[in-house]
């Protein structure tokens, strides 16, 4: 008779082994072969489906979803699109790449994530040069807005902190690869901070006369920060629940983004941190920019209550509800029906120069995926000029110069004005520092902005505290910070 009893130790060992097997078996066949980008077969058989991981409203999923039937007609492939809200998307994207999952062929990538992800993305320079892979759409990289293209998609995978040295010229694949960089996606949904204002107030005869009477000047959309303050002060009427402008000074990326735009306007490095890891935000320009920002709240008092706890959601709600005459945001704006007003748009004001914060999503090919040739074809089609133009019908923010040329001549004047301003803002915009822990760094700077805005620290002291924290964060993440 067989001895069926087992020892306790043996049993526990077996149970742990079983657990380990179960754990590793949870993702069967998940690992894909790594790729250099050179091994894509243009003649690979057509899959029945392609899987794309995409954002929700943050990257206007509705616009892309509207194109899916046309995609199927064109490719004969079903593009299955999974959408996730921002935080969940980031975690999903990173966990997919950490497990070298083959499931998603196409992944949307936001610029703060790209420095950590770039080694997981398919480099596209060779695909762009391969005519057999460009049979579904014209990739025409020169048509992308240069700043948007270089900031979003061009990386040196060996040293991802670096930006391409010439971001003003139209994209040139040979120049990119010649400088040791490559292209890791195609930009779509380009967001920039723009100024919106209540056009109905700015054209109201009573307001025009009132402003003239009060300031001796004609009421006009502000182009400089001094003008911005004057106009904001004029419209601030707390007894009527009307204020000059919103700010997004709550602790979060929004405060950093507000500060970034002002830092660039005051002649500082709008990326906050240089490619050499210099802490550019801690500078005389940084202090001056933050002082002006704080003055809007505490000295001129042109912002509504709660502005030091506001995010872009609250800022948009305040403007939409008619509580402010001006706002700076990259949130979609739409005045409430009860306001009975009209929105106008303009590039954010300048001081010495201007450099509104921008950030663009890109569609990238999963380098572990099994359908890379078709995934590449898909992203060339989705980001092509014609498709982007179609998606502007759903308020997509295009990334191509040619699309802006067409939409700014559209019959809908409000829409044309919005796109003209967005295009102009993207052309002069400033992106983020390329750090694997940008979110932590951004949080430290946001706390400094908020501390100054709430009056608990002077701007200079707040930035000094942030600099100490950022230096430690960078060191902890493995960077060698100078000085």
């Amino acid at each position: 008779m067989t001895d069926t009893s087992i020892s306790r130790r043996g049993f526990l060992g077996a149970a742990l082994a079983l657990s380990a097997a179960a754990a590793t078996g949870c993702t069967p066949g998940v690992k894909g072969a790594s790729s250099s980008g050179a091994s894509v077969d243009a003649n690979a058989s057509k899959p029945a489906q392609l899987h794309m991981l995409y954002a929700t409203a943050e990257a206007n999923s509705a616009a892309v979803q509207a194109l899916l039937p046309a995609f199927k007609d064109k490719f004969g492939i079903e593009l299955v699109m999974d959408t996730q809200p921002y935080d969940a998307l980031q975690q999903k994207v990173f966990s997919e790449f950490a497990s070298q999952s083959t499931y998603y062929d196409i992944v949307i990538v936001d610029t703060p994530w790209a420095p950590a992800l770039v080694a997981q993305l398919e480099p596209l320079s060779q695909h762009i040069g391969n005519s057999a892979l460009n049979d579904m759409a014209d990739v025409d990289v020169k048509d992308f807005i240069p700043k948007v293209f270089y900031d979003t998609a061009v990386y040196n995978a060996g040293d991802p902190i670096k930006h391409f040295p010439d971001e003003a010229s139209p994209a040139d694949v040979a120049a990119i690869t010649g400088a040791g960089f490559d292209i890791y996606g195609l930009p779509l949904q380009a967001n920039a901070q723009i100024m919106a204002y209540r056009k109905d107030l700015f054209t109201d005869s009573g307001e025009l006369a009132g402003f003239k009477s009060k300031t001796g000047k004609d009421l006009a959309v502000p182009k400089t920060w001094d003008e911005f303050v004057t106009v904001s002060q004029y419209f601030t009427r707390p007894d009527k629940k009307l204020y000059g402008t919103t700010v997004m000074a709550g602790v979060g990326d929004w405060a950093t983004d507000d500060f970034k735009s002002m830092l660039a306007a005051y002649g500082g490095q709008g990326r906050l941190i240089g490619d050499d890891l210099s802490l550019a935000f801690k500078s005389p320009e940084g202090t001056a920019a933050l002082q002006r920002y704080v003055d809007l709240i505490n000295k001129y008092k042109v912002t509504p209550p709660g502005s030091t706890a506001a995010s872009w959601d609250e800022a948009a709600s305040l403007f939409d509800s008619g509580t402010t005459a001006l706002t700076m945001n990259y949130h979609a704006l739409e005045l409430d029906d009860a306001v009975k007003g009209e929105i106008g748009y303009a590039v954010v004001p300048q001081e010495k120069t201007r450099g509104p914060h921008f950030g663009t999503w890109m569609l990238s090919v999963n380098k572990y995926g099994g359908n890379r040739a078709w995934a590449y074809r898909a992203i060339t089609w989705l980001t092509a000029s014609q498709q982007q133009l179609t998606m502007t019908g759903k308020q997509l923010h295009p990334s191509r110069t040619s699309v802006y040329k067409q939409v700014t001549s559209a019959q809908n004047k409000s829409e044309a004005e919005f796109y003209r301003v967005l295009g102009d803002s993207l052309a002069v915009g400033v992106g983020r520092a390329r750090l694997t822990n940008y979110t932590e760094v951004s949080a430290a700077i946001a706390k400094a902005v908020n501390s100054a805005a709430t009056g608990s620290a002077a701007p200079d002291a707040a930035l000094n505290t942030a600099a100490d924290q950022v230096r430690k964060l960078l060191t902890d993440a493995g960077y060698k910070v100078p000085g």
Partner: protein
Amino acid sequence: MTDTLAAKPSPTVTEKPEGYGLRPRRERKGETLVPWVLMTPTLVLLALMTIMPTIYLLRASVRNDTLLNTNGRFVGLANYSNALTDPTFWHSLLITIGFVVVAVALEMLLGMALSLPLAGERLSSTWGTTLLLLPFAITPVVSAMIFKELLNPNYGWVDYYLGQLGLPAHIEWLSHPTTAWIALIGLDVWQWTPFVALILIAGLQSLPGEPREAAAIDGASTWQMFWHVTLPQLKPFIAIALVLRTIQAFKTFDYFKVMTGGGPGDSTEILNLAIYRIALQSFRIGAAAAIAILLLILLSLLVPALLRGVGRNADPEEA
């Protein structure tokens, strides 16, 4: 009869019942397998959900791994050292402890105050107890979003009704550290006091009535009966509520993420926000694991201490 009784040895002095001796009964083959087989699903689940993640966490805490970097290396206690020498860690730890102490203390007091009238077997008590369930039936993140809107100084109900009552009506709740803490603790107390109250109601309803009747006959006042009779008997339930709420409060994340993001400044930057940012936004798994282990150690020391403190003489028979 007498002889029979006298001849029967006492089992409690010289002999132990079968199976209770120093030498265990020799088990038949296969007999030991049955309980282990029955326990297998639970043990596998425990191993998968608790033991393996803990081992992974410990391993990660002594390495400099990031989620996407497979070339992480052993760094000894460097992650712990980094955390323990970082002033922001100590700031976050202290305010986390402060939040737990204040919020849980308020919840225990209010929970007790609610439980006493609701413990009686009356229709109104049944309705009251049912209503108590509502706050903690709401997802914490949803509660936080609703509270944030209610506290909005431009259109929120809280400032509006304060104004209607002639009280200061222009409070920017989330813009100042003191009012932000009042809002956060207020939300936590609103959501979790019913949980404490329900545990204590169950405890009160299970207490024997005789000691209170005896005290009443002896002329004890209501306060004396509560303080000297009911409260000591209730200690096991208080201990359960206190320990559960303390552990839950240390895990609080949603309210802070939604309502303040750690602000104003870093005044509400609790440890879980830092762990979230490091682990799930920068994916520095090693650094986050070290902080999580430190929090785990703190909880492991705190919970037995709480149980010893509150649970002393908690046995109703000894009270």
